[in-house]
């Protein structure tokens, strides 16, 4: 652990806590707590969605998957990306038009049955629990690495921080924390991408050639089929990625935080601006990262 890393980390924690403090002062009603009173504009929400997508799973997990499994890891990036089109084309507008807080509320308004609502709530909670376990493990491992803490302490710290953000600041705080996170990660991505490319004199073909020679997989590394050997494995992974990501509760909930459907479409277009740019760079980064990992 180095002094610079710890200082940087503490600055970011302090910044997010300040955001939470101001958001908490503004949050009074249920509407403000759950959907930031519908008071975020398209750009802000676009960045917040980009932040949601830029989770530990996508930022660290996919880079690792590509580093270990080559092209098969890249499938994850593509699945996440196309899931965004599913959200934009099929989910966003109808969902926002109903004006509810959660997916369970939405299903309830359509079908008006308590049992259906209970099942929807249960499914949301189940998804979120599994999703959160993965995020906590990722973030905990990172803090453990940075500070040399025990693993359980690292996970506890992350859990307490997450709870503070959400409990006190509601949707306003989480949105702003996501916006800050998205901007930071995009800048980081750009810098790292540049550095990796610089290492290869901006020659991508050469970079691929190097990648092949440094992994234990050899030339298999650049071909699909390293991890997913059965065709059905690949197909079911791709199906789960494209529909699963589009259905994540915390992504869907974002569409309730803008004033109306028009803004939600604006959100769509802006988040494609923010998100696409990020994703494209980020995915190059992932490939490059894996290139540099072995060197």
């Amino acid at each position: 652990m180095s002094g610079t890393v710890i200082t940087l980390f503490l600055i970011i924690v302090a910044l997010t806590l300040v955001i939470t403090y101001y958001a908490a002062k503004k949050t009074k009603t249920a509407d403000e707590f759950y959907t930031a009173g519908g008071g975020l504009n398209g750009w802000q929400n676009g960045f917040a969605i980009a932040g949601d997508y830029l989770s530990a799973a996508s930022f660290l997990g996919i880079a690792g998957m590509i580093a270990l499994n080559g092209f098969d890891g890249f499938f994850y990036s593509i699945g996440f990306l196309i899931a965004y089109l599913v959200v934009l084309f099929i989910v966003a507008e109808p969902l926002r038009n109903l004006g509810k807080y959660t997916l369970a509320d939405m299903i309830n308004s359509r079908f008006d049955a308590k049992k259906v609502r209970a099942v929807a709530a249960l499914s949301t909670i189940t998804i979120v629990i599994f999703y959160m376990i993965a995020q906590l493990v990722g973030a905990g491992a990172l803090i453990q690495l940075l500070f040399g803490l025990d693993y359980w302490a690292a996970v506890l710290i992350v859990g307490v921080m997450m709870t503070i953000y959400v409990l006190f600041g509601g949707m306003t705080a989480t949105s702003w924390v996501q916006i800050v996170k998205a901007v930071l990660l995009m800048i980081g991505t750009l810098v790292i991408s540049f550095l990796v490319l610089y290492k290869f004199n901006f020659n991508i073909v050469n970079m691929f050639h190097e990648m092949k020679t440094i992994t234990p997989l050899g030339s298999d590394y650049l071909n699909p089929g390293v991890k997913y050997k059965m065709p059905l494995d690949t197909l079911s992974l791709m199906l789960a990625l494209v529909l699963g990501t589009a259905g994540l509760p915390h992504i869907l909930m974002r569409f309730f935080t803008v004033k109306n459907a028009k803004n939600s479409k604006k959100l769509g277009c802006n988040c494609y601006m923010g998100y696409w740019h990020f994703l494209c760079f980020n995915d190059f980064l992932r490939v490059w990262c894996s290139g540099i990992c072995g060197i």
Partner: protein
Amino acid sequence: MEKGKQTQQKGRKHIDYESIASSSKFKELISTKKKFIISGSIFFLVFYFALPILTSYTTILNKKAFGEISWAWVFAFLQFIMTWVLCTMYVRKAATFDRLADEVISENINKGEVGA
């Protein structure tokens, strides 16, 4: 839009929803929207699933395109370009849909007020 919504709610009892639903303008809005959404969705799903299908059932994409970069990587990067293009198209189309919807709303609100 917000303002229009409020006026619409105020004048709710004067608006004949069935006549709006059967008006040609509204039908045109819904059908153009449906056409675009459905064809767009089918296109990106086919484009998306073509990649895993081609990589798992055939090896044609393993041929080299540029140096060590195989066609599988090229197709994967094309997915990004496709997403970009479809998003741009959606944003443009959405602006048209919003304009058509506003026209339908304003026409019927005027009618409603006259009726009152």
